[in-house]
């Protein structure tokens, strides 16, 4: 397969690009941030996502979705990144939909997938417990009780946690923190007694929450997949998340970059446009190279997720590592090249830097991915 977008994919990208530029621009993020909007994303926009078939992008057609692939998911994420659009797309349409479509029972699929596809259900995935992404370090427990389980523990960095109608929660049914086995995934209604949700206002004004579970009782049919076998499902879901966020970072980095290039050709100092200075030209050319090389790695990872899902981990690690690194460079250079203007809240460039900082942390930063790769390659 060529490492290029197909014609259909290019058309989808162009249509999403136009749509989000019109309906999910940065001004929307500012409005949500400045009004301290209780939801943190636009429900109107989410309804439009549903109309376009984007909410059910990873939902099989049998369950009301469009059954597209990860490359298409990445195209939407890239445009979300370009516009810094707050959207449940990542947590609901990608992470949760992927987990349920891959591991859910027929009942679970029938319950959740059609409502995800129709845009009526918001979902969140709760994995991390500390300040860094450590999926094997899960301490939260799920103890058998009667016919079901009782959950105890606390989750952090739960994207859209305060707005979710359902949460997929990773807890330990056996073993201890650090063990790869012994994880089970649960579908939890966040209104269940014992659940406490604290919305956390983040640096990038995107949604996140801390969630506490104290003696939260769930039925046996809340288990997603098999007991103790959630680690494998989770690994797949996290790969989807990493590749998706990598694609978002491509959009963040490239938009910050193209705004910087535009600024270099406008801004005049010493009687020249500053883009004439070789000191800046070389840095811009280097950054362009980094971004292009990252774009290849991200597209490759998305293609491999479509073609060979079980063997995508190394490709995804490479993509997420590269995306975090090069987009971070892009936003840092963007602020520096914009000079004092880049430091102002009125200018959008700082918002790109903030989102890149969060996104590169999400589902594992550069170091996490590099260690994962070294382990896969056995050194």
């Amino acid at each position, binding site marked *: 397969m060529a490492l290029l977008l197909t014609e259909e994919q290019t058309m989808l990208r162009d249509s999403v690009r136009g749509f989000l530029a019109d309906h999910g621009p940065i001004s929307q993020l500012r409005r949500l941030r400045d009004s301290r909007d209780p939801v943190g994303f636009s429900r109107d926009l989410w309804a439009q996502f549903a109309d376009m078939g984007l909410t059910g992008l990873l939902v099989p057609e049998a369950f009301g979705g469009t059954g597209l692939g990860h490359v298409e998911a990445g195209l939407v994420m890239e445009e979300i990144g370009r516009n810094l659009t707050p959207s449940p797309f990542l947590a609901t349409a990608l992470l949760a939909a992927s987990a349920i479509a891959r591991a859910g029972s027929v009942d679970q699929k029938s319950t959740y997938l059609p409502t995800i596809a129709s845009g009526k259900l918001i979902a969140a995935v709760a994995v991390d417990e500390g300040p860094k992404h450590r999926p094997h370090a899960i301490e939260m427990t799920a103890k058998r009780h009667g016919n079901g389980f009782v959950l105890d523990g606390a989750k952090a960095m739960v994207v859209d946690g305060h707005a979710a109608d359902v949460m997929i929660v990773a807890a330990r049914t056996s073993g201890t923190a650090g063990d790869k086995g012994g994880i089970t995934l649960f579908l939890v209604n966040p209104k269940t007694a014992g659940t406490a949700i604290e919305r956390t206002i983040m640096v990038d004004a995107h949604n996140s929450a801390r969630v506490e579970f104290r003696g939260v009782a769930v039925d046996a049919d809340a288990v997603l997949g098999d007991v103790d076998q959630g680690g494998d499902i989770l690994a797949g879901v996290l790969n989807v998340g990493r590749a998706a966020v990598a694609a978002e970072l491509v959009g963040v980095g490239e938009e910050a970059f193209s705004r910087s290039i535009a600024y270099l050709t406008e801004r005049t100092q010493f009687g020249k446009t500053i*883009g004439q*200075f070789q000191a800046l030209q*070389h840095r811009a050319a280097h950054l362009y190279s980094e971004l*292009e090389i990252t774009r*290849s790695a991200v*597209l490759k990872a998305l293609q491999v997720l479509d073609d060979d899902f079980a063997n995508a981990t190394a490709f995804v690690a490479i993509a997420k*590592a590269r995306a975090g690194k090069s987009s971070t460079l892009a936003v840092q250079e963007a602020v520096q090249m914009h000079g004092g203007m880049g430091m102002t809240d009125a200018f959008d460039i700082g918002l790109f830097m903030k989102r890149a900082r969060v996104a590169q942390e999400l589902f594992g930063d550069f170091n996490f991915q590099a260690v994962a790769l*070294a382990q896969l390659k056995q*050194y």
Partner: protein
Amino acid sequence: MPDLETFQRDARAWLEANCPPEMRTPPRNEEDRCWGGKRWKFESAAQRTWLERMVAKGWTVPEWPTAYGGGGLSREEAKVLRAEMRSLGCRSPLDSFGIWMLGPALLKYGSEEQKRHYLPQITRGEIRWCQGYSEPNAGSDLASLQTKAEDKGDHFLINGQKIWTSYADKADWIFCLVRTDPAAKKHEGISFLLFDMTSQGVSTKPILLISGKSPFCETFFDNVKVPKNQLVGTLNKGWDIAKYLLTHERDMIGSMGDGGANRPLGQVAAQSLGTTAAGELADPMLRADIAHFEIDEAAFRMTMERAGDMMKAGQGNPAFSSVLKYYGTELNKRRHELLMSAGGTDALEWESDRSHNGARARNWLRTKANSIEGGTSEVQLNIVAKRILGLPDA
């Protein structure tokens, strides 16, 4: 695509049956690579067999037309073939400036007669070519070259000097940039000539480098006569050919950043440094550097693949080869710094059997030229800034 799958199966079976086992180990040094040419001495029977079998298939140049000795493969098939060769660890049967640089230029600018004469010799490795580009006063500013070719009726008369001519002392023929109109602007008076290195008046002098080796020469032309049918393209329009060829040279040098058949760095380092009980490389900082490098290298390889696919689909920018040249050479330098670090003082032995006479150190030193030859990294960044990003001239 079932056809491609059939091709893949057949290619693999053929390679397994025809690539001698000795040719399935990575080349340890320059001498392990087969460069061909009239004076080539095969280092082993296996090297000769491998070349002859690949020549018969047309697979020394899989994508060239069969009429000129190529394999006539589609880009997709050639990609599959390369992947199969990589996975079986097959060495390149023939390394050649004829294949990498002159051939593509002849395919685009040569006359039909020239193509039929020169290309098959290139595919068979019969003629070893060298590149007469740089001069003592024309390095990054290549277009200021001064070697002159005067029109003497039935021939050109060449006088001047080239420098950094790779393997000029081993080459049979040269493709050479010469000034044919000294009055014209510097880009407009240059022509592209081919001639025999055994011609009267050609002499070469190897240059000893920091690696202790002499891959480059000074090349002198003293009243060298060149028949006029050895001009490629139009008189005084050689700069277009020169630039076109440079993009191929950049791809070639840049592709060194694609580790390909090289042994994974993590394994090389583990061999000399050992591992912890957890199986991790004993030097955690070097482990991190290697992982970082491998991430970039893998992404670079994917970028070469994507760039090729884009060119094929007509979506490419020719200046993108400068990105590949810039990044690939910087990566190759990084690879060799890491190899030196992994080897520690063992890798510093210059004269010993243990170190194969300092092979690793000499290779490391050689890579420092990667970001200079074929246009420096700084020149590539200039090209990217202007031709891709559209930033204004100073």
